[in-house]
């Protein structure tokens, strides 16, 4: 599919207000092209979901948005990527500040070998805060991550004593403590049990009311449940993007319908 076709398809159902704008965006590692010609806009609120078969470039695209892969050897970025009208790959962009603004939660929960409270405050080290401010931030972040009720009585305990589902919610709380402008989630429910997965899904929906949330998932049921906006990537190219209703309906492209309905892709 050509870039011109992408533009047409995406613009048809593009959101009115955008958080992320991709213009003919591509990611290369050495000679390997992982993503190419992606042109899309993500809405300024709500949950956007990246779907597609393994190797489609979903995680690469997600990681490109907060520049977490910057140190990877051979990385080359082509095209444009703006966040709230700011060119993320411009020379003047402060990468560490950008990463704090665009929070990221990874597939595997990873808590630091410290207490639950210290984990929540980890990204705020270096910021002078009173004990009362710290308590407020910890409580607020844990409540936002639907974890406060589970852990409020043991904030001083080591974080790795929590269950995997709780650890993942702690990772979300840790990102939320920085009050990010956007949250990226790379298969956040892949390593947790179904009950925890549902809790995280609810959490995503709640977070989407205040900030844009972009998540990657292989679980199409989950995509249907949580997404306001869906992007379908295949073989490094954006096949189609649009609202959830559109993407899961008969009006979507045949290729999209085949993948979203039959979980099969012939890219």
């Amino acid at each position, binding site marked *: 599919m050509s870039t011109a076709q992408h533009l047409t398809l995406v613009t048809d159902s593009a959101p009115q207000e955008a958080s992320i704008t991709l213009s003919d965006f591509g990611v290369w590692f050495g000679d390997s092209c992982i993503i190419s010609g992606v042109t899309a806009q993500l809405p300024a609120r709500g949950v956007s979901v990246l779907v597609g078969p393994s190797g489609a470039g979903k995680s690469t695209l997600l990681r490109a948005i907060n520049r977490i892969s910057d140190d990877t050897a051979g990385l080359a970025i082509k095209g444009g990527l703006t966040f709230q009208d700011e060119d993320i790959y411009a020379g003047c962009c402060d990468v*560490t500040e950008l990463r*704090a603004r665009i929070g990221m939660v990874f597939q595997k929960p990873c808590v630091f070998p410290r207490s639950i409270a210290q984990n929540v405050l980890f990204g705020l080290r*270096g910021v002078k805060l009173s004990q009362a401010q710290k308590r407020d931030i910890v409580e607020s972040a844990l409540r936002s991550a639907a974890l406060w009720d589970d852990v409020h009585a043991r904030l001083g305990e080591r974080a790795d004593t929590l269950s995997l589902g709780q650890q993942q919610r702690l990772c979300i709380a840790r*990102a939320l403590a920085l009050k990010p402008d956007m949250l990226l989630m790379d298969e956040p429910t892949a390593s947790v049990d179904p009950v925890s997965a549902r809790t995280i899904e609810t959490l995503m929906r709640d977070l989407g009311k205040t900030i844009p949330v972009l998540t990657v998932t292989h679980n199409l049921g989950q995509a249907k449940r949580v997404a306001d906006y869906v992007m379908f990537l295949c073989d490094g190219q954006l096949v189609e993007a649009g609202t959830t209703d559109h993407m899961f309906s008969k009006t979507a492209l045949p290729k999209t319908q085949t993948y979203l309905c039959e979980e099969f892709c012939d890219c």
Partner: protein
Amino acid sequence: MFSRAAKEHVFAAATRIALFISIGILAFLLGAIILRGLSALSLDFLFTPSRSFGSSGGIAYQILGSLLTAITAGLIATPVALGASVYRSEYMTSQRARRIFDLMLYGLNGVPSIIFGLFGLILFVNIIGTGLSWFVGGIILAVMMLPTATLATVNAMRGIEKNYRENALALGLTREQTALRIIIPQSLHGLVTGVLIGLARAIGETAPIMFIATAFSGATVPTSLHEPVATLPTHILALAQQAADPAALKNAWGASFTLIALVALFSLAAFFARARLSPYSRR
């Protein structure tokens, strides 16, 4: 033809024999030193200076000299090993450069100790003109223990999952902050273990400090950096040369036992430090 079970028995027996040989040699050596050394040991022996070239008196200055040079070495080697490990782990992105760095460390680890002694003699005594100095001995011992400490730290850093780095970076931490708050605390057990094992080796070394830092007799408590000290290994060497004198031989066993005890102390400390400082230990 042997049956599979018979082969299994032969293999198990061969490995058992290998184990018994290695334990047997160690037990014999330690047993001999402990049995003979204990008879020489007393508070007087440990806390009084030697007299008559060591055949009478104690080993107070030798213990002090050994600890002084070894601890100086540890203090010098620790920050260098830590810095080198952090650079290799966090800033050296080329795999080829990492391999060369590792190879150099393994090479440095294999250099015979006498070569370090000669290097110290030429550089510090002949060229710089420091004369015999316990501090120079500490520097040379630090160079000797550097590969052990660095490799142990590098291995500990290698064991830290990529996830930790990515999660720290994703929270807006710089590479420096990631190194200080995630990488170093989580690899501290490797550094401490490496330094303590290096110390255990350094305190027993004779050759590297023989020409540059020690005096066989007459050395007391140094009052400046440019003075020699007496150390346990050189003292044992001097006493062994007077083996015909039973009093000197008895003191040699006593000094050997003390040296072994110090080495064991450092090794035990390394064992407990590893268990205590490991990020996976429950505190």
